């Protein structure tokens, strides 16, 4: 249908493209509804990279039909009308152009055999066609799941549903002024507090007493107390507990409805955080008892129906929720809406995940964006049960299909990057999860791909070490080593990179995702805290490693000790906290010894 060519004004990767040349229009009008039929069988995609190429047989070595050149120095093009392959080496010889002229009309359009991109030999320019690109994208999509087990079923964990509970999120990024402010707020503090501190430990390093199996809480609190943007927020008095409590009391007295339970509305986890920050950064080194905090949190968590006791990750999620709810409750709606700003918990930890679900029949894709405060990653790729069980890049390099990017990774060792690769890989949805395609108007096989639309200031990665089986009412812990880097570049997992590396310079059936410059600048992260779990599922112990002033410290409840980084590298990470490099202050990294 030549009428479909009208769509060519639509953007590719956010850019408006010129109209198709007369040769392409002509070719399409000659060849009916499916002009690229012949090419479809020749599309080859090599997983896992997903670069598309044109080969009649998988191992064909194409060469120019006129001079025999096999692509050493020139590009090779296959005529879309007759499949003849010819060379094209501007400004030198172009047997592709010769072919187009001699067979004219109808043989001008050719396809680059190594890139599967259309070229007009008469115009000597790249041309774009929506249907052609759709065919390539579908072939790439199919190939990228070739090695996946045929039925990947993501069991909807009730636990996960609760975690992903929607919050009224509005994206926020600090502007340059705020960044300067955040940076400058930390320096004078270090200078003054350090003097009153012992020489050995940096400011704010203080043990937390175990209040009866509360290491799950202490471990997370240690990480939060040293989360740079959170620390700066509280230490610069942005949530003053005296002010907040006074305000709550006033509100309380004013409304009759709350009179029955005066304590509840005064409970504010942010206030307790404020108190804890003051205590921990006071210079006092004797272990601190976060009893007030525990009490408040317990009051808050008691309302959560399915709270799983003593899981550090569960605690982390529920306490961020707690801070959010209280702050939102205190706000007037008009204030909180539309100003790109939420509670401190979400400003620090919230990112946005993008999920594309593509219909395998027609290529129609629906895209959704979801806020998240952390990313939960599956540990083992070769085990039944949980999701994202597709073969990884590193597996391929083990099989001799070396991918140089993974050569540095040790075969057999799981890495955080490997987990993120799997997390962002296309995943075929099982038959029970067929999604309703708006274009086909029926339920269809589909393919889902996750990527990160917006990075948070602090990225928390949660490694799913605990496997829960609701059927057998059993849980078990996976004791498996996972390698994690001290510096992490998140750029490869951003939506823009994921979609671009998959589909390149093509029309793709996704809604346009504008290139995100701010993401590019802030994709580098530094590790500053690792929460580890040792021992059995029920009789385990949580310990946190903190990186302060470029030195690692082990926080084991009340005991804080300096440790070598090799100990941290060997530790079994359960939660890893990374902060954007721009917020990982160089100034506070080096302790000034007078």
């Amino acid at each position, binding site marked *: 249908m030549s009428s479909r060519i009208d769509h060519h004004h639509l953007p590719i990767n956010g850019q408006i493209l010129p109209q198709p040349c007369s040769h392409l229009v002509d070719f399409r009008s000659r060849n009916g509804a499916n002009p690229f039929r012949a090419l479809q069988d020749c599309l080859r995609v090599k997983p896992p990279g997903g*670069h598309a190429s044109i080969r009649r047989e998988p191992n064909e070595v*194409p*060469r120019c039909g006129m001079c025999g050149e*096999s*692509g050493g120095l020139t590009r090779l093009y296959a005529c879309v009308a007759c499949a*003849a392959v010819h060379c094209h080496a*501007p400004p030198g010889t172009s047997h592709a152009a010769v072919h187009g002229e001699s067979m004219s009309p109808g043989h001008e359009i050719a396809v680059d055999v190594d890139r599967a991109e259309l070229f007009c030999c008469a115009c000597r320019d790249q041309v774009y066609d929506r249907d052609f690109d759709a065919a390539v994208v579908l072939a790439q999509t199919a190939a990228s799941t070739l090695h996946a087990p045929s039925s990947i079923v993501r069991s909807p964990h009730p636990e996960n549903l609760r975690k992903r509970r929607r919050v009224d999120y509005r994206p926020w990024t600090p502007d340059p002024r705020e960044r300067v402010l955040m940076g400058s707020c930390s320096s004078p503090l270090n200078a003054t507090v350090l003097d009153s501190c012992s020489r050995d430990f940096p400011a704010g390093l203080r043990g937390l007493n175990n209040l009866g199996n509360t290491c799950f809480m202490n471990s997370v609190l240690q990480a939060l107390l040293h989360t740079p943007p959170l620390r700066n927020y509280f230490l610069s008095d942005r949530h003053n507990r005296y002010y907040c409590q006074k305000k709550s009391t006033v509100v309380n007295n004013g409304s009759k409805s709350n009179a029955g339970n005066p304590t509840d509305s005064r409970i504010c986890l942010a206030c307790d955080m404020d108190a804890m920050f003051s205590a921990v950064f006071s210079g006092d080194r004797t272990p601190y008892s976060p009893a007030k905090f525990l009490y408040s949190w317990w009051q808050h968590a008691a309302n959560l129906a399915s709270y799983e006791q003593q899981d550090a990750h569960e605690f982390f999620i529920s306490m961020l929720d707690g801070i959010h709810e209280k702050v939102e409750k205190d706000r007037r709606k008009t204030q909180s809406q539309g100003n790109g700003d939420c509670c401190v918990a979400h400003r620090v930890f919230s990112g946005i995940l993008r999920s594309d679900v593509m219909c395998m029949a027609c290529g129609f894709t629906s895209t959704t964006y979801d806020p998240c405060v952390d990313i939960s990653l599956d540990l083992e790729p070769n085990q039944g049960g949980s999701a994202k069980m597709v073969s990884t890049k590193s597996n391929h390099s083990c099989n001799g299909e070396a991918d140089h990017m993974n050569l540095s990774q040790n075969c057999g060792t799981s890495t955080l990057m490997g987990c993120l690769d799997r997390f962002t890989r296309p995943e075929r949805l099982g038959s029970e999860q067929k999604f309703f395609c708006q274009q086909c108007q029926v339920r269809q096989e589909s393919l889902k791909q996750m990527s990160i639309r917006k990075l948070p200031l602090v990225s928390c990665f949660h490694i799913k070490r605990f496997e829960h089986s609701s059927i057998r009412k059993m849980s078990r812990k996976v004791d498996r080593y996972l390698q994690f880097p001290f510096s992490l570049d998140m750029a490869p997992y951003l939506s823009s990179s994921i979609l671009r590396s998959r589909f390149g310079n093509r029309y793709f059936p996704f809604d346009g995702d504008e290139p995100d410059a701010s993401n590019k600048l802030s994709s580098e992260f530094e590790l500053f805290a690792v929460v580890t779990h040792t021992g059995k599922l029920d009789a385990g112990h949580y310990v946190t490693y903190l990186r302060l002033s470029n030195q690692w410290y082990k926080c084991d409840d009340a005991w804080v000790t300096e440790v070598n980084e090799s100990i941290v590298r060997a530790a079994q990470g359960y939660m890893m906290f990374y902060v954007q490099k721009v917020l990982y202050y160089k100034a506070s990294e080096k302790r000034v010894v007078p």
Partner: protein
Amino acid sequence: MRASVNRPPTPDVGDTQEKQPTLEEIINIKFIESGEKERLMELLRERLIECGWKDEMKALCRAFVKKKGRNNVTVDDLVHLITPKGRASIPDSIKAELLQRIRTFLVSAAL
């Protein structure tokens, strides 16, 4: 193995199939068949991005398109424009690394 060298890959192949392939052609085909060429291309792509070469070429192209107007430039024009500059400005370290990889491959392929 050798058979594929002489196999007519296209319907309108002329008399080229009769000729003995040169050593250069044999090497090229070995590289393609083994997949090594693809890996080297990927490595090269990566390196050229890392060292800023790609951004440099992009800037050249952008400037040219701006000067000529976006509807008056073809891909061939751009290739013509950047080929000499692009060839000249590839860092020696990258060339050395690729040469080393190629040598290693040739030794392992026992050519």
